[in-house]
């Protein structure tokens, strides 16, 4: 094998495509779209990395994974060493390999990508994690001796899981409190099965439990218990409650039956498994003509879920153009392949319904792009008189989410910014309230899995310092 790929020919290996389900088949099922690399494909892809001395890719990774380091082990076929390398910096590689926006992070900076397609860092990361989960030895990292200190982690999304994983290894007692009946945050209730199988998230949570982390579900902090009560029982509290407040369009007709927030639509289908109704009890309107409003990952997930729930037409209605879509490139590509129909430069003005209260359509306006706005993107401007109606029976609003005030309102002493997000030191995650840290979407606003994990890592370091040295 290795003789065939001698040094001079190295750069000629094309980026290895990950085998995936056929679009026409997968648009009708909830199974994961890509199958993942085989060991052969992974080793071949790993050959493409030229092992830079000063790797640019690493600068693009918010948690600074030693990317050439883990790729080298894959190339050599030592998959356990590869996963150990990943674990040094990232406790959820199976998740990040699947959901990071690699094209603007690690892979976006990879030097191979200058002339050719970049090394498939995300795919390789995913491979190493999957291989370990499915075929690897059952290894647990070493734990420091018990310190007798106790930490409460509120919220079990990527930020909370990272804090819990870090601090349990440093010898502290950790309890996670989660409001829903299952841990994982957006990874479990938001991102669909066909993109991130729930079994992977459950596996990560079980792994934490085996390390000794206690996970209390059904615990709505602010209601079941307050942060101040937790502070009586714990030495430190980390808040990683996410940005769980749905935004609506605030246009007429949003009450019609069939209009959903993306949070509701995705929670019903993922967490509550409405796609398996009536075997599961939670229902979801199975629209034939579904429109999703927005252009991010959440919108792609909703539009692709609608296809799998039996929609004949699944539209994405977005007020800017293709170039401005904020979703991961892979998700846009998959959505297009599966037949999601994009209506660009289109903005909804009102929903239409019948007398029984069911949604029947949406009136929209055409837009054109004007001068760049504060965000640097060209501002969409409505074209007068361009109204038209799209017939739909289901609408999913995926235009972002805000700060849920349930916990913050019940927690005196926290400082919030004008949008209701918690103010925390960007280097340590310390809030204005003593012994309370925060990180992830509830600090930054809706962002990414890896940024939430990065914030969790900074906070866990700071919490450890506090518990050990008192600062």
């Amino acid at each position, binding site marked *: 094998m290795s003789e065939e790929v001698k040094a001079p020919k190295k750069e000629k290996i094309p980026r290895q495509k990950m085998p995936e389900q056929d679009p026409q088949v997968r648009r009708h099922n909830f199974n994961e779209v890509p199958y993942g690399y085989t060991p052969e494909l992974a080793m071949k892809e790993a050959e493409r990395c030229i092992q830079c001395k000063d790797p640019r890719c690493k600068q693009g990774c918010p948690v600074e994974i030693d990317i050439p380091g883990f790729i080298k082990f894959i190339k050599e076929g030592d998959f356990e060493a590869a996963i150990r390398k990943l674990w040094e910096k990232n406790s959820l590689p199976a998740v990040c390999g699947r959901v990071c926006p690699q094209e603007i992070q690690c892979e976006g900076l990879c030097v191979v990508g200058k002339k050719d397609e970049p090394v498939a860092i995300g795919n390789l990361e995913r491979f190493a994690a999957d291989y370990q989960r499915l075929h690897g030895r059952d290894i647990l990292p070493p734990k420091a001796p018990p310190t007798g200190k106790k930490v409460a982690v509120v919220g079990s999304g990527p930020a909370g899981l990272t804090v819990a994983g870090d601090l349990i290894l440093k010898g502290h007692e950790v309890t996670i409190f989660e*409001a829903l009946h299952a841990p994982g945050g957006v990874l479990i209730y938001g991102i669909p099965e066909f993109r991130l199988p729930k079994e992977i998230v459950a596996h990560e949570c079980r792994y934490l439990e085996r390390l000794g982390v206690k996970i209390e579900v*059904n615990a709505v902090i602010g209601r079941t218990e307050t942060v101040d009560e937790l502070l009586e029982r714990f030495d430190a509290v980390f808040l990683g409650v996410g940005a*769980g407040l749905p935004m609506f369009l*605030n246009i007429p007709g949003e009450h019609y039956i069939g209009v959903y927030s993306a949070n509701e639509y995705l929670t019903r289908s993922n967490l509550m*498994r409405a796609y398996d109704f009536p075997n*599961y009890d*939670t229902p979801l309107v199975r629209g034939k003509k579904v429109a999703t409003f927005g252009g991010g990952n959440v919108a792609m997930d909703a539009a692709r879920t609608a296809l799998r729930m039996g929609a004949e037409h699944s539209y994405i209605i977005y007020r800017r153009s293709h170039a401005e879509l904020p979703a991961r490139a892979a998700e846009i590509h998959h959505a297009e392949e599966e037949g999601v129909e994009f209506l660009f430069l289109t903005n909804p003005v009102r929903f239409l319904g019948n007398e029984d*209260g069911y949604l029947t359509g949406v009136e929209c306006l055409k837009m054109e792009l004007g001068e760049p706005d504060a965000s640097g993107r060209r501002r969409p401007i409505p074209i007068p008189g361009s109204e038209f109606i799209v017939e739909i029976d289901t609408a999913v609003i995926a235009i972002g989410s805000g700060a849920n*005030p349930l916990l913050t309102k019940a927690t005196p002493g926290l400082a919030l910014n004008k949008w209701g997000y918690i103010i925390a030191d960007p280097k340590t995650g310390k809030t204005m309230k003593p012994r309370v840290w925060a990180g992830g979407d509830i600090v930054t606003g809706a962002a990414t899995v890896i940024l939430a994990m990065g914030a969790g890592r900074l906070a866990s370091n700071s919490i450890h310092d506090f518990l050990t040295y008192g600062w």
Partner: protein
Amino acid sequence: MFEIVEREEMAQGTIISNWVRAPKIAKKAKPGQFVILRANETGERIPLTMADTDPERGLINIIYAVVGKSTALFKTLKVGDAYLDVIGPLGQPTHLEKVGKVVCVGGGTGIAVLHPITRGLKQLGNHVIAIIGARTKELLILEDKMRAASHELHICTDDGSYGHKGFVTEMLKKVLTENRDIGLAVCIGPVPMMKFCSQMTKEFGVKTLVSLNPIMLDGTGMCGCCRVQVGGRMQFACVDGPEFDGHQVDFDELTLRLRSYLPEEKLAYDRFKASLGQGCSHKS
């Protein structure tokens, strides 16, 4: 797991009362708050108001009408069985205060929700007039408890089989006419009842609280499925409510949204009834 320690069938088995072990919630709960329950892994998350609590024994009391698949499934749970999940206490507690004279109106299972509020208002020194109603005598619940929690109790049945014949709204009109000094009305029951009671109290200029029961999912303000229009503004019943000013609520929109899943609900209930039938024939 949240064990059922006491169970009672009321109103000829159409309404069930459970005392459930949930110590943390029992300690925290206040009148007007609710919990979300799930019976098993495939179950729906169902919101039910706490009708009472016993913090010492760590128990909460729920009283629910059997109306569809999930409540029928709950009905099959016996003493010693457990709910898989109980989440709470959720929602804003009732703002209980001394106003002088108040009227509390309850219909159907709404009486269970009304009872702790009525009791609280009386404890604060209000003069409490209560009106409770049901379709027929056998379906009336908590008469004794409501009598103890109020100074005057009026009973109405639609068919006249017990108490006054007619709707609670008619009795409410009489009470409001005779007691011009009433400062607050609390009306809890089916949506049409709350709507008509609120119209009535508005004519008399009496401030009115209602408790809304839209379809819910998470109960923490995350999904927006419980949105209701109150005073022209979108509110989430699970965190901003479930109690609202009855004069401001858009009841027609609520009625409409409650019908969201009628075909699915029927399908699920029919399937469940069929499976129960099979279960029985196996045993015999």
